[in-house]
Protein backbone atom coordinates (compact mmCIF):
# COMPACT_ATOMS: atom_id res chain seq x y z
CA UNK A 1 0.00 0.00 0.00
CA UNK A 2 1.27 3.44 -0.93
CA UNK A 3 2.05 5.77 1.90
CA UNK A 4 -0.43 8.62 1.58
CA UNK A 5 1.19 11.02 3.99
CA UNK A 6 4.53 12.75 3.96
CA UNK A 7 6.05 14.68 1.12
CA UNK A 8 6.44 13.45 -2.43
CA UNK A 9 9.42 11.37 -3.43
CA UNK A 10 12.35 13.52 -4.48
CA UNK A 11 11.89 15.56 -7.64
CA UNK A 12 14.41 14.92 -10.41
CA UNK A 13 15.16 18.62 -10.61
CA UNK A 14 17.87 20.31 -8.53
CA UNK A 15 16.68 21.88 -5.30
CA UNK A 16 16.10 25.58 -4.99
CA UNK A 17 18.99 25.98 -2.55
CA UNK A 18 21.45 24.27 -4.91
CA UNK A 19 20.49 26.49 -7.84
CA UNK A 20 20.64 29.63 -5.68
CA UNK A 21 24.09 28.71 -4.40
CA UNK A 22 25.52 27.90 -7.84
CA UNK A 23 24.13 31.12 -9.32
CA UNK A 24 25.40 33.25 -6.43
CA UNK A 25 28.90 31.83 -6.84
CA UNK A 26 28.65 32.47 -10.57
CA UNK A 27 27.72 36.12 -10.02
CA UNK A 28 30.58 36.57 -7.53
CA UNK A 29 33.09 35.00 -9.89
CA UNK A 30 31.89 37.09 -12.83
CA UNK A 31 32.05 40.24 -10.69
CA UNK A 32 35.59 39.53 -9.56
CA UNK A 33 36.62 38.87 -13.14
CA UNK A 34 34.99 42.12 -14.23
CA UNK A 35 36.80 44.15 -11.54
CA UNK A 36 40.18 42.69 -12.42
CA UNK A 37 40.21 42.77 -16.18
CA UNK A 38 40.57 45.72 -18.47
CA UNK A 39 42.91 47.89 -20.46
CA UNK A 40 44.37 49.70 -17.42
CA UNK A 41 46.36 46.68 -16.28
CA UNK A 42 44.94 46.54 -12.76
CA UNK A 43 44.77 42.78 -12.20
CA UNK A 44 43.64 40.24 -9.64
CA UNK A 45 46.98 40.20 -7.81
CA UNK A 46 46.93 44.01 -7.41
CA UNK A 47 43.45 43.86 -6.00
CA UNK A 48 44.25 41.01 -3.61
CA UNK A 49 47.38 42.82 -2.41
CA UNK A 50 45.36 45.92 -1.69
CA UNK A 51 41.93 45.09 -0.31
CA UNK A 52 39.33 47.82 -0.93
CA UNK A 53 41.90 49.72 -2.94
CA UNK A 54 44.04 50.71 0.05
CA UNK A 55 47.61 51.23 -1.05
CA UNK A 56 46.75 51.54 -4.71
CA UNK A 57 48.05 54.45 -6.70
CA UNK A 58 45.64 57.31 -7.25
CA UNK A 59 45.27 56.31 -10.88
CA UNK A 60 44.42 52.72 -10.01
CA UNK A 61 41.88 53.87 -7.46
CA UNK A 62 40.16 55.96 -10.11
CA UNK A 63 40.16 52.95 -12.44
CA UNK A 64 38.65 50.76 -9.73
CA UNK A 65 36.13 53.10 -8.13
CA UNK A 66 35.09 55.38 -10.95
CA UNK A 67 35.34 53.10 -13.99
CA UNK A 68 35.17 49.42 -13.16
CA UNK A 69 32.92 49.47 -10.10
CA UNK A 70 30.13 51.58 -11.67
CA UNK A 71 30.42 49.50 -14.81
CA UNK A 72 30.07 46.31 -12.77
CA UNK A 73 27.08 47.74 -10.91
CA UNK A 74 25.44 48.75 -14.18
CA UNK A 75 26.09 45.32 -15.71
CA UNK A 76 24.58 43.53 -12.72
CA UNK A 77 21.55 45.81 -12.64
CA UNK A 78 20.86 45.78 -16.38
CA UNK A 79 21.36 42.00 -16.66
CA UNK A 80 19.07 41.33 -13.72
CA UNK A 81 16.45 43.77 -15.02
CA UNK A 82 16.38 42.36 -18.55
CA UNK A 83 16.15 38.75 -17.37
CA UNK A 84 13.49 39.43 -14.73
CA UNK A 85 11.39 41.54 -17.10
CA UNK A 86 11.61 38.73 -19.66
CA UNK A 87 10.40 36.23 -17.07
CA UNK A 88 7.54 38.55 -16.04
CA UNK A 89 6.34 39.11 -19.60
CA UNK A 90 6.64 35.44 -20.53
CA UNK A 91 4.55 34.56 -17.50
CA UNK A 92 2.03 37.29 -18.27
CA UNK A 93 1.66 36.33 -21.93
CA UNK A 94 1.87 32.61 -21.05
CA UNK A 95 4.41 32.38 -23.84
CA UNK A 96 8.10 31.52 -23.52
CA UNK A 97 8.87 33.65 -26.60
CA UNK A 98 7.66 36.94 -25.12
CA UNK A 99 10.27 39.52 -24.29
CA UNK A 100 10.42 43.26 -23.62
CA UNK A 101 10.36 43.89 -27.38
CA UNK A 102 6.76 42.70 -27.35
CA UNK A 103 5.25 45.36 -25.13
CA UNK A 104 6.81 48.04 -27.27
CA UNK A 105 9.38 49.12 -24.68
CA UNK A 106 12.30 48.41 -26.98
CA UNK A 107 10.79 50.08 -30.03
CA UNK A 108 9.67 53.10 -28.01
CA UNK A 109 13.05 53.40 -26.34
CA UNK A 110 14.78 53.04 -29.70
CA UNK A 111 12.68 55.83 -31.17
CA UNK A 112 13.38 58.02 -28.15
CA UNK A 113 17.11 57.49 -28.51
CA UNK A 114 17.09 58.20 -32.23
CA UNK A 115 15.05 61.38 -31.72
CA UNK A 116 17.59 62.53 -29.15
CA UNK A 117 20.58 61.70 -31.34
CA UNK A 118 19.23 63.22 -34.55
CA UNK A 119 17.16 66.13 -33.26
CA UNK A 120 18.99 66.74 -29.98
CA UNK A 121 21.00 69.53 -31.58
CA UNK A 122 17.82 71.56 -32.08
CA UNK A 123 17.22 71.90 -28.34
CA UNK A 124 17.71 75.36 -26.82
CA UNK A 125 21.21 75.64 -25.35
CA UNK A 126 19.83 75.96 -21.80
CA UNK A 127 17.98 72.65 -21.80
CA UNK A 128 20.76 70.91 -23.69
CA UNK A 129 23.20 72.08 -21.03
CA UNK A 130 20.91 70.89 -18.26
CA UNK A 131 20.53 67.27 -19.41
CA UNK A 132 23.80 67.19 -21.33
CA UNK A 133 25.19 63.76 -22.06
CA UNK A 134 22.19 62.01 -20.44
CA UNK A 135 19.85 63.27 -23.16
CA UNK A 136 19.86 60.01 -25.14
CA UNK A 137 19.26 57.90 -22.02
CA UNK A 138 16.44 60.11 -20.80
CA UNK A 139 14.77 60.14 -24.20
CA UNK A 140 15.09 56.36 -24.52
CA UNK A 141 13.61 55.72 -21.08
CA UNK A 142 10.82 58.19 -21.78
CA UNK A 143 10.07 56.60 -25.17
CA UNK A 144 9.88 53.10 -23.72
CA UNK A 145 7.64 54.27 -20.92
CA UNK A 146 5.24 56.15 -23.23
CA UNK A 147 5.00 53.21 -25.64
CA UNK A 148 4.04 50.86 -22.81
CA UNK A 149 1.44 53.24 -21.43
CA UNK A 150 -0.16 53.66 -24.87
CA UNK A 151 -0.29 49.88 -25.32
CA UNK A 152 -1.75 49.31 -21.89
CA UNK A 153 -4.42 51.92 -22.59
CA UNK A 154 -5.32 50.38 -25.96
CA UNK A 155 -5.62 46.89 -24.49
CA UNK A 156 -7.62 47.88 -21.39
CA UNK A 157 -11.34 48.42 -21.45
CA UNK A 158 -13.32 48.73 -18.28
CA UNK A 159 -11.14 47.06 -15.70
CA UNK A 160 -9.92 44.24 -17.92
CA UNK A 161 -6.70 44.15 -19.93
CA UNK A 162 -6.76 41.93 -22.99
CA UNK A 163 -3.35 40.31 -23.14
CA UNK A 164 -3.74 39.08 -26.73
CA UNK A 165 -4.78 42.54 -27.87
CA UNK A 166 -1.73 43.99 -26.16
CA UNK A 167 0.48 41.57 -28.07
CA UNK A 168 -1.04 42.52 -31.44
CA UNK A 169 -1.08 46.24 -30.70
CA UNK A 170 2.57 45.89 -29.65
CA UNK A 171 3.45 44.61 -33.10
CA UNK A 172 1.61 47.52 -34.74
CA UNK A 173 3.15 50.10 -32.45
CA UNK A 174 6.62 48.64 -32.94
CA UNK A 175 6.18 48.92 -36.70
CA UNK A 176 5.08 52.52 -36.31
CA UNK A 177 8.04 53.37 -34.10
CA UNK A 178 10.26 51.55 -36.59
CA UNK A 179 8.93 53.71 -39.42
CA UNK A 180 9.57 56.90 -37.46
CA UNK A 181 13.03 55.65 -36.53
CA UNK A 182 13.71 54.89 -40.19
CA UNK A 183 12.61 58.36 -41.22
CA UNK A 184 14.96 60.00 -38.71
CA UNK A 185 17.76 57.66 -39.73
CA UNK A 186 17.20 58.79 -43.31
CA UNK A 187 17.72 62.46 -42.45
CA UNK A 188 20.60 61.82 -40.04
CA UNK A 189 24.14 62.91 -40.94
CA UNK A 190 27.12 60.54 -40.87
CA UNK A 191 28.13 61.24 -37.27
CA UNK A 192 24.56 60.77 -36.05
CA UNK A 193 24.27 57.57 -38.04
CA UNK A 194 27.34 56.24 -36.29
CA UNK A 195 25.99 57.27 -32.87
CA UNK A 196 22.64 55.61 -33.35
CA UNK A 197 24.14 52.46 -34.81
CA UNK A 198 26.32 52.13 -31.73
CA UNK A 199 23.40 52.86 -29.42
CA UNK A 200 21.39 50.09 -31.04
CA UNK A 201 24.23 47.63 -30.45
CA UNK A 202 24.30 48.30 -26.73
CA UNK A 203 27.14 49.09 -24.35
CA UNK A 204 27.88 49.43 -20.66
CA UNK A 205 30.73 51.81 -21.37
CA UNK A 206 28.89 54.94 -20.33
CA UNK A 207 28.58 53.85 -16.69
CA UNK A 208 29.07 56.66 -14.18
CA UNK A 209 27.84 56.99 -10.63
CA UNK A 210 25.66 59.90 -11.74
CA UNK A 211 23.84 57.75 -14.29
CA UNK A 212 23.56 54.93 -11.79
CA UNK A 213 21.88 57.22 -9.29
CA UNK A 214 18.86 57.35 -11.60
CA UNK A 215 19.05 53.83 -13.01
CA UNK A 216 19.61 51.75 -9.87
CA UNK A 217 16.54 52.92 -7.92
CA UNK A 218 14.28 52.30 -10.93
CA UNK A 219 15.66 48.84 -11.58
CA UNK A 220 15.68 48.14 -7.85
CA UNK A 221 12.00 49.01 -7.70
CA UNK A 222 11.16 46.61 -10.53
CA UNK A 223 13.27 43.86 -8.97
CA UNK A 224 11.60 44.36 -5.60
CA UNK A 225 8.06 44.17 -6.95
CA UNK A 226 8.61 41.26 -9.36
CA UNK A 227 8.87 38.42 -6.78
CA UNK A 228 5.55 39.50 -5.29
CA UNK A 229 3.87 38.62 -8.59
CA UNK A 230 5.23 35.06 -8.63
CA UNK A 231 2.20 33.24 -7.23
CA UNK A 232 -0.14 35.18 -9.49
CA UNK A 233 1.96 34.39 -12.56
CA UNK A 234 2.02 30.70 -11.62
CA UNK A 235 -1.77 30.69 -11.44
CA UNK A 236 -2.00 32.60 -14.73
CA UNK A 237 -0.30 29.65 -16.43
CA UNK A 238 -3.64 27.87 -15.97
CA UNK A 239 -5.52 30.72 -17.63
CA UNK A 240 -7.07 33.93 -16.34
CA UNK A 241 -10.34 32.32 -15.22
CA UNK A 242 -8.58 29.61 -13.24
CA UNK A 243 -6.22 32.15 -11.68
CA UNK A 244 -9.21 34.17 -10.51
CA UNK A 245 -10.85 31.03 -9.08
CA UNK A 246 -7.67 30.47 -7.11
CA UNK A 247 -7.97 33.86 -5.48
CA UNK A 248 -5.60 35.84 -7.69
CA UNK A 249 -6.49 39.46 -8.46
CA UNK A 250 -5.72 38.95 -12.14
CA UNK A 251 -6.04 42.57 -13.22
CA UNK A 252 -3.64 43.69 -10.48
CA UNK A 253 -1.06 41.10 -11.52
CA UNK A 254 -1.33 42.19 -15.15
CA UNK A 255 -1.03 45.87 -14.32
CA UNK A 256 1.94 45.42 -12.02
CA UNK A 257 3.74 43.04 -14.39
CA UNK A 258 3.42 45.48 -17.29
CA UNK A 259 4.48 48.47 -15.18
CA UNK A 260 7.38 46.52 -13.72
CA UNK A 261 8.56 45.44 -17.15
CA UNK A 262 8.27 48.98 -18.50
CA UNK A 263 10.18 50.53 -15.61
CA UNK A 264 12.84 47.82 -15.49
CA UNK A 265 13.47 47.50 -19.22
CA UNK A 266 13.01 51.22 -19.83
CA UNK A 267 15.68 52.05 -17.27
CA UNK A 268 17.99 49.31 -18.56
CA UNK A 269 17.65 50.17 -22.24
CA UNK A 270 18.00 53.88 -21.50
CA UNK A 271 21.52 53.50 -20.10
CA UNK A 272 22.78 50.52 -22.06
CA UNK A 273 21.07 50.63 -25.46
CA UNK A 274 19.81 47.58 -27.28
CA UNK A 275 20.98 44.44 -25.49
CA UNK A 276 18.98 41.51 -26.80
CA UNK A 277 18.41 37.88 -25.91
CA UNK A 278 19.09 38.18 -22.17
CA UNK A 279 15.37 38.49 -21.42
CA UNK A 280 14.57 35.63 -23.76
CA UNK A 281 17.30 33.10 -23.03
CA UNK A 282 17.80 33.42 -19.26
CA UNK A 283 14.26 32.50 -18.14
CA UNK A 284 14.12 29.75 -20.75
CA UNK A 285 17.41 28.24 -19.57
CA UNK A 286 16.23 28.31 -15.96
CA UNK A 287 12.88 26.72 -16.77
CA UNK A 288 14.74 23.83 -18.37
CA UNK A 289 17.06 23.45 -15.39
CA UNK A 290 14.68 23.90 -12.46
CA UNK A 291 11.10 24.05 -13.70
CA UNK A 292 8.76 26.98 -14.36
CA UNK A 293 7.76 27.95 -10.78
CA UNK A 294 8.01 31.76 -10.77
CA UNK A 295 8.83 31.84 -7.08
CA UNK A 296 12.25 30.47 -7.99
CA UNK A 297 12.37 31.64 -11.58
CA UNK A 298 12.28 35.37 -10.82
CA UNK A 299 15.07 35.57 -8.21
CA UNK A 300 17.21 33.10 -10.12
CA UNK A 301 16.67 34.99 -13.39
CA UNK A 302 17.97 38.10 -11.65
CA UNK A 303 21.14 36.24 -10.62
CA UNK A 304 21.77 34.47 -13.92
CA UNK A 305 20.98 37.59 -15.99
CA UNK A 306 23.32 39.70 -13.86
CA UNK A 307 26.15 37.17 -14.02
CA UNK A 308 25.83 36.53 -17.74
CA UNK A 309 25.74 40.18 -18.71
CA UNK A 310 28.78 41.00 -16.57
CA UNK A 311 30.60 38.08 -18.15
CA UNK A 312 29.58 39.24 -21.64
CA UNK A 313 30.85 42.71 -20.75
CA UNK A 314 34.24 41.29 -19.71
CA UNK A 315 34.48 39.48 -23.05
CA UNK A 316 33.36 42.57 -24.96
CA UNK A 317 36.17 44.68 -23.55
CA UNK A 318 38.93 42.08 -23.75
CA UNK A 319 38.26 40.32 -27.05
CA UNK A 320 39.36 43.25 -29.26
CA UNK A 321 41.33 45.19 -26.59
CA UNK A 322 42.15 48.02 -26.37
CA UNK A 323 38.98 48.64 -28.42
CA UNK A 324 35.56 47.42 -27.26
CA UNK A 325 33.02 45.26 -29.04
CA UNK A 326 29.42 46.47 -28.45
CA UNK A 327 27.92 44.08 -25.92
CA UNK A 328 24.64 43.70 -27.83
CA UNK A 329 26.56 41.98 -30.62
CA UNK A 330 27.94 39.48 -28.14
CA UNK A 331 24.64 38.70 -26.43
CA UNK A 332 23.03 38.11 -29.81
CA UNK A 333 26.00 36.14 -31.09
CA UNK A 334 25.81 33.73 -28.16
CA UNK A 335 22.18 34.09 -27.20
CA UNK A 336 20.63 33.26 -30.55
CA UNK A 337 22.46 29.93 -31.11
CA UNK A 338 21.89 28.93 -27.47
CA UNK A 339 18.22 29.67 -27.90
CA UNK A 340 18.05 27.66 -31.12
CA UNK A 341 19.87 24.79 -29.46
CA UNK A 342 17.43 24.85 -26.55
CA UNK A 343 14.46 24.77 -28.91
CA UNK A 344 15.84 21.81 -30.85
CA UNK A 345 16.96 19.98 -27.71
CA UNK A 346 13.55 20.49 -26.19
CA UNK A 347 11.65 19.25 -29.22
CA UNK A 348 13.94 16.22 -29.57
CA UNK A 349 13.29 15.33 -25.94
CA UNK A 350 9.57 15.45 -26.51
CA UNK A 351 9.81 13.45 -29.68
CA UNK A 352 8.30 16.07 -31.94
Amino acid at each position, binding site marked *: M*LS*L*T*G*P*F*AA*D*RRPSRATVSLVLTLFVLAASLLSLTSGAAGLGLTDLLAAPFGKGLSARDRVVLYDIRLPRLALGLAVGAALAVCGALLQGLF*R*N*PLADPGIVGVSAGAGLGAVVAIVLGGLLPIGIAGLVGPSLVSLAAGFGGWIATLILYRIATSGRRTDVALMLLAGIALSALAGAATGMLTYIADDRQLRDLTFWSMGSLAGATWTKLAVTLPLIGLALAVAPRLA*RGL*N*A*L*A*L*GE*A*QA*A*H*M*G*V*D*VQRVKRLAVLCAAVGTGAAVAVSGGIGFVGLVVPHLL*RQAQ*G*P*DHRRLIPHAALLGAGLLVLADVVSRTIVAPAELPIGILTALFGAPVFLWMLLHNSLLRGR
Partner: protein
Amino acid sequence: MLEIRNLSVRLGRRTVLEDVTLGARPGELLAICGANGAGKSTLLKAVLDEVPAQGTIRLNGHQVGQNRPEALAPQRAVLPQDTDVAFSFTLAEVVGMGREAGDFAAQPEVDRLALAAVGLQGREHDDFRTLSGGERQRGHLARALAQVWEPVGPQGPRWLMLDEPVASLDLGHQLKVMQLARSFADAGGGVVAIMHDLNLSAMFADRMALLIDGRLAAIGSPAEVMTGPLLERAYGCTVALDRVPASGPWLLPQNCGGHLD
Protein backbone atom coordinates in the same frame (compact mmCIF):
# COMPACT_ATOMS: atom_id res chain seq x y z
CA MET B 1 -26.05 28.20 0.95
CA LEU B 2 -25.96 29.30 -2.68
CA GLU B 3 -28.93 31.54 -3.49
CA ILE B 4 -29.68 32.70 -7.00
CA ARG B 5 -32.60 35.12 -7.38
CA ASN B 6 -34.07 36.54 -10.58
CA LEU B 7 -30.84 36.03 -12.46
CA SER B 8 -30.79 37.34 -16.03
CA VAL B 9 -27.78 37.47 -18.31
CA ARG B 10 -27.62 39.21 -21.66
CA LEU B 11 -24.63 38.73 -23.90
CA GLY B 12 -24.83 41.25 -26.70
CA ARG B 13 -28.48 41.29 -27.75
CA ARG B 14 -29.09 37.68 -26.83
CA THR B 15 -30.77 36.81 -23.57
CA VAL B 16 -28.89 33.76 -22.33
CA LEU B 17 -30.54 33.45 -18.94
CA GLU B 18 -33.96 34.82 -18.04
CA ASP B 19 -35.20 35.23 -14.49
CA VAL B 20 -33.62 32.12 -12.99
CA THR B 21 -34.21 31.55 -9.29
CA LEU B 22 -32.78 28.54 -7.54
CA GLY B 23 -30.84 27.56 -4.46
CA ALA B 24 -28.26 24.93 -3.56
CA ARG B 25 -27.81 23.73 -0.04
CA PRO B 26 -24.65 22.51 1.63
CA GLY B 27 -24.72 18.74 1.96
CA GLU B 28 -26.35 18.42 -1.44
CA LEU B 29 -25.19 17.66 -4.96
CA LEU B 30 -27.12 19.77 -7.45
CA ALA B 31 -26.85 18.79 -11.11
CA ILE B 32 -27.51 21.52 -13.68
CA CYS B 33 -28.77 19.91 -16.89
CA GLY B 34 -29.97 21.13 -20.26
CA ALA B 35 -29.19 21.03 -23.97
CA ASN B 36 -26.24 22.83 -25.57
CA GLY B 37 -26.87 26.56 -25.40
CA ALA B 38 -29.53 26.26 -22.69
CA GLY B 39 -27.46 28.48 -20.38
CA LYS B 40 -25.75 25.98 -18.07
CA SER B 41 -22.24 27.36 -18.45
CA THR B 42 -23.47 30.94 -18.32
CA LEU B 43 -25.24 30.15 -15.04
CA LEU B 44 -21.93 28.90 -13.64
CA LYS B 45 -20.09 31.94 -14.98
CA ALA B 46 -22.61 34.24 -13.34
CA VAL B 47 -22.10 32.43 -10.04
CA LEU B 48 -18.35 32.94 -10.48
CA ASP B 49 -18.81 36.63 -11.39
CA GLU B 50 -17.36 36.18 -14.85
CA VAL B 51 -20.26 37.66 -16.83
CA PRO B 52 -22.26 40.80 -16.11
CA ALA B 53 -25.54 39.64 -14.61
CA GLN B 54 -28.74 41.12 -13.21
CA GLY B 55 -30.26 39.67 -10.08
CA THR B 56 -28.85 38.48 -6.80
CA ILE B 57 -26.34 35.71 -6.22
CA ARG B 58 -25.21 34.98 -2.70
CA LEU B 59 -22.73 32.35 -1.56
CA ASN B 60 -22.69 31.61 2.15
CA GLY B 61 -24.54 34.88 2.67
CA HIS B 62 -22.07 37.06 0.72
CA GLN B 63 -23.06 38.80 -2.47
CA VAL B 64 -20.93 37.42 -5.31
CA GLY B 65 -18.59 40.07 -6.67
CA GLN B 66 -18.34 41.88 -3.35
CA ASN B 67 -15.71 39.56 -1.91
CA ARG B 68 -12.07 39.93 -2.80
CA PRO B 69 -10.82 36.96 -4.86
CA GLU B 70 -8.41 35.78 -2.17
CA ALA B 71 -11.18 35.77 0.42
CA LEU B 72 -13.47 33.73 -1.81
CA ALA B 73 -10.91 31.13 -2.92
CA PRO B 74 -10.84 29.15 0.37
CA GLN B 75 -14.63 28.84 0.20
CA ARG B 76 -15.16 27.55 -3.31
CA ALA B 77 -13.08 25.74 -5.90
CA VAL B 78 -13.86 25.38 -9.58
CA LEU B 79 -13.22 22.53 -12.00
CA PRO B 80 -13.06 24.04 -15.49
CA GLN B 81 -13.66 22.26 -18.74
CA ASP B 82 -10.36 21.31 -20.27
CA THR B 83 -7.94 24.19 -19.93
CA ASP B 84 -4.36 24.29 -21.15
CA VAL B 85 -1.40 24.89 -18.88
CA ALA B 86 1.46 27.09 -20.05
CA PHE B 87 5.03 26.00 -19.25
CA SER B 88 6.11 22.63 -17.93
CA PHE B 89 4.48 22.66 -14.51
CA THR B 90 4.31 19.21 -12.93
CA LEU B 91 1.08 17.67 -11.74
CA ALA B 92 2.21 18.21 -8.14
CA GLU B 93 2.90 21.90 -8.80
CA VAL B 94 -0.55 22.40 -10.34
CA VAL B 95 -2.29 20.67 -7.43
CA GLY B 96 -0.13 22.71 -5.02
CA MET B 97 -1.40 25.95 -6.59
CA GLY B 98 -4.95 24.97 -5.65
CA ARG B 99 -3.95 23.96 -2.14
CA GLU B 100 -2.10 27.21 -1.52
CA ALA B 101 -5.13 29.21 -2.66
CA GLY B 102 -7.20 27.63 0.11
CA ASP B 103 -6.73 27.11 3.81
CA PHE B 104 -4.28 24.23 3.45
CA ALA B 105 -1.11 26.05 2.39
CA ALA B 106 0.78 24.59 5.35
CA GLN B 107 -0.29 21.00 4.68
CA PRO B 108 1.63 19.72 1.64
CA GLU B 109 0.40 16.17 2.30
CA VAL B 110 -2.98 17.31 0.96
CA ASP B 111 -1.49 17.26 -2.58
CA ARG B 112 -0.76 13.58 -2.31
CA LEU B 113 -4.14 12.76 -0.82
CA ALA B 114 -5.95 14.73 -3.53
CA LEU B 115 -3.97 12.99 -6.28
CA ALA B 116 -4.69 9.60 -4.75
CA ALA B 117 -8.39 10.51 -4.57
CA VAL B 118 -8.52 10.96 -8.36
CA GLY B 119 -6.32 7.93 -9.05
CA LEU B 120 -3.18 9.82 -10.10
CA GLN B 121 -0.87 8.74 -7.29
CA GLY B 122 2.71 8.19 -8.41
CA ARG B 123 2.32 10.66 -11.29
CA GLU B 124 3.13 13.81 -9.32
CA HIS B 125 6.33 14.67 -11.22
CA ASP B 126 4.81 14.23 -14.69
CA ASP B 127 4.68 17.35 -16.85
CA PHE B 128 1.02 18.35 -16.76
CA ARG B 129 0.99 18.88 -20.54
CA THR B 130 2.01 15.28 -21.22
CA LEU B 131 -1.09 13.86 -19.51
CA SER B 132 -4.02 12.52 -21.51
CA GLY B 133 -7.25 14.51 -21.69
CA GLY B 134 -8.94 12.46 -18.99
CA GLU B 135 -5.87 12.58 -16.76
CA ARG B 136 -5.67 16.37 -17.13
CA GLN B 137 -9.30 16.64 -16.10
CA ARG B 138 -8.68 14.50 -13.03
CA GLY B 139 -5.53 16.53 -12.31
CA HIS B 140 -7.60 19.73 -12.32
CA LEU B 141 -10.14 18.01 -10.08
CA ALA B 142 -7.33 17.14 -7.65
CA ARG B 143 -6.32 20.82 -7.72
CA ALA B 144 -9.90 21.88 -6.94
CA LEU B 145 -10.19 19.29 -4.17
CA ALA B 146 -6.92 20.45 -2.60
CA GLN B 147 -8.26 24.01 -2.53
CA VAL B 148 -11.32 23.03 -0.45
CA TRP B 149 -9.91 19.84 1.07
CA GLU B 150 -12.22 19.79 4.09
CA PRO B 151 -15.86 20.22 3.02
CA VAL B 152 -16.68 22.39 6.03
CA GLY B 153 -14.40 25.21 7.14
CA PRO B 154 -14.39 27.90 9.83
CA GLN B 155 -16.49 30.16 7.59
CA GLY B 156 -19.10 27.56 6.83
CA PRO B 157 -19.55 24.94 4.14
CA ARG B 158 -17.12 24.91 1.25
CA TRP B 159 -18.24 24.58 -2.37
CA LEU B 160 -17.19 22.66 -5.44
CA MET B 161 -18.31 24.04 -8.78
CA LEU B 162 -17.82 21.40 -11.46
CA ASP B 163 -18.16 22.20 -15.16
CA GLU B 164 -18.88 18.86 -16.86
CA PRO B 165 -16.73 16.85 -14.45
CA VAL B 166 -17.10 13.57 -16.34
CA ALA B 167 -17.03 14.86 -19.92
CA SER B 168 -13.83 13.16 -21.06
CA LEU B 169 -13.62 10.29 -18.60
CA ASP B 170 -14.03 6.56 -19.10
CA LEU B 171 -16.86 4.68 -17.40
CA GLY B 172 -14.86 3.69 -14.33
CA HIS B 173 -13.48 7.16 -13.71
CA GLN B 174 -16.89 8.72 -14.33
CA LEU B 175 -18.23 6.73 -11.40
CA LYS B 176 -15.16 7.44 -9.30
CA VAL B 177 -15.37 11.21 -9.86
CA MET B 178 -19.11 11.28 -9.15
CA GLN B 179 -18.52 9.30 -5.97
CA LEU B 180 -15.91 11.88 -4.92
CA ALA B 181 -18.40 14.68 -5.50
CA ARG B 182 -21.05 12.71 -3.63
CA SER B 183 -18.85 12.14 -0.59
CA PHE B 184 -17.84 15.84 -0.56
CA ALA B 185 -21.53 16.69 -0.29
CA ASP B 186 -22.19 13.93 2.26
CA ALA B 187 -19.47 15.44 4.45
CA GLY B 188 -21.29 18.77 4.52
CA GLY B 189 -19.92 20.61 1.50
CA GLY B 190 -21.96 21.89 -1.43
CA VAL B 191 -21.54 20.64 -4.99
CA VAL B 192 -22.94 22.25 -8.12
CA ALA B 193 -22.19 20.22 -11.25
CA ILE B 194 -23.02 20.94 -14.87
CA MET B 195 -23.94 17.56 -16.31
CA HIS B 196 -24.72 16.15 -19.72
CA ASP B 197 -25.12 12.58 -18.54
CA LEU B 198 -28.64 12.38 -17.14
CA ASN B 199 -28.24 8.81 -15.86
CA LEU B 200 -25.18 9.71 -13.80
CA SER B 201 -26.97 12.83 -12.57
CA ALA B 202 -29.94 10.74 -11.47
CA MET B 203 -27.65 8.26 -9.74
CA PHE B 204 -25.62 10.78 -7.74
CA ALA B 205 -27.48 14.09 -7.50
CA ASP B 206 -29.92 14.98 -4.75
CA ARG B 207 -31.64 17.41 -7.07
CA MET B 208 -31.51 18.21 -10.74
CA ALA B 209 -32.18 21.59 -12.34
CA LEU B 210 -33.24 21.53 -15.97
CA LEU B 211 -32.65 24.62 -18.12
CA ILE B 212 -34.53 25.14 -21.38
CA ASP B 213 -33.68 28.18 -23.52
CA GLY B 214 -32.26 30.14 -20.61
CA ARG B 215 -35.18 29.49 -18.27
CA LEU B 216 -35.40 27.14 -15.36
CA ALA B 217 -37.90 24.53 -16.57
CA ALA B 218 -37.79 22.25 -13.54
CA ILE B 219 -35.89 21.67 -10.32
CA GLY B 220 -36.38 18.77 -8.00
CA SER B 221 -35.48 15.19 -7.29
CA PRO B 222 -34.30 13.11 -10.27
CA ALA B 223 -37.67 11.35 -10.31
CA GLU B 224 -39.45 14.71 -10.59
CA VAL B 225 -37.23 16.08 -13.36
CA MET B 226 -36.63 12.93 -15.42
CA THR B 227 -40.04 12.78 -17.05
CA GLY B 228 -40.75 12.08 -20.69
CA PRO B 229 -42.42 15.39 -21.62
CA LEU B 230 -39.82 17.55 -19.85
CA LEU B 231 -36.86 15.73 -21.40
CA GLU B 232 -38.44 15.81 -24.84
CA ARG B 233 -38.94 19.56 -24.50
CA ALA B 234 -35.37 20.03 -23.26
CA TYR B 235 -33.49 17.79 -25.65
CA GLY B 236 -35.86 17.35 -28.61
CA CYS B 237 -35.83 13.58 -28.45
CA THR B 238 -38.03 10.90 -26.99
CA VAL B 239 -36.65 8.67 -24.26
CA ALA B 240 -37.59 5.39 -22.66
CA LEU B 241 -37.61 5.78 -18.88
CA ASP B 242 -37.37 3.13 -16.23
CA ARG B 243 -36.40 2.93 -12.58
CA VAL B 244 -33.64 1.05 -10.84
CA PRO B 245 -34.93 0.44 -7.30
CA ALA B 246 -31.63 1.38 -5.63
CA SER B 247 -30.57 4.40 -7.66
CA GLY B 248 -33.67 5.97 -9.15
CA PRO B 249 -34.66 6.65 -12.73
CA TRP B 250 -32.62 5.93 -15.85
CA LEU B 251 -33.27 6.57 -19.47
CA LEU B 252 -32.48 5.24 -22.89
CA PRO B 253 -32.68 7.77 -25.74
CA GLN B 254 -35.04 6.63 -28.48
CA ASN B 255 -35.57 9.02 -31.31
CA CYS B 256 -34.57 12.56 -32.01
CA GLY B 257 -36.85 12.88 -35.01
CA GLY B 258 -34.02 12.70 -37.50
CA HIS B 259 -32.93 16.30 -37.12
CA LEU B 260 -31.14 18.46 -34.66
CA ASP B 261 -32.44 21.84 -33.70
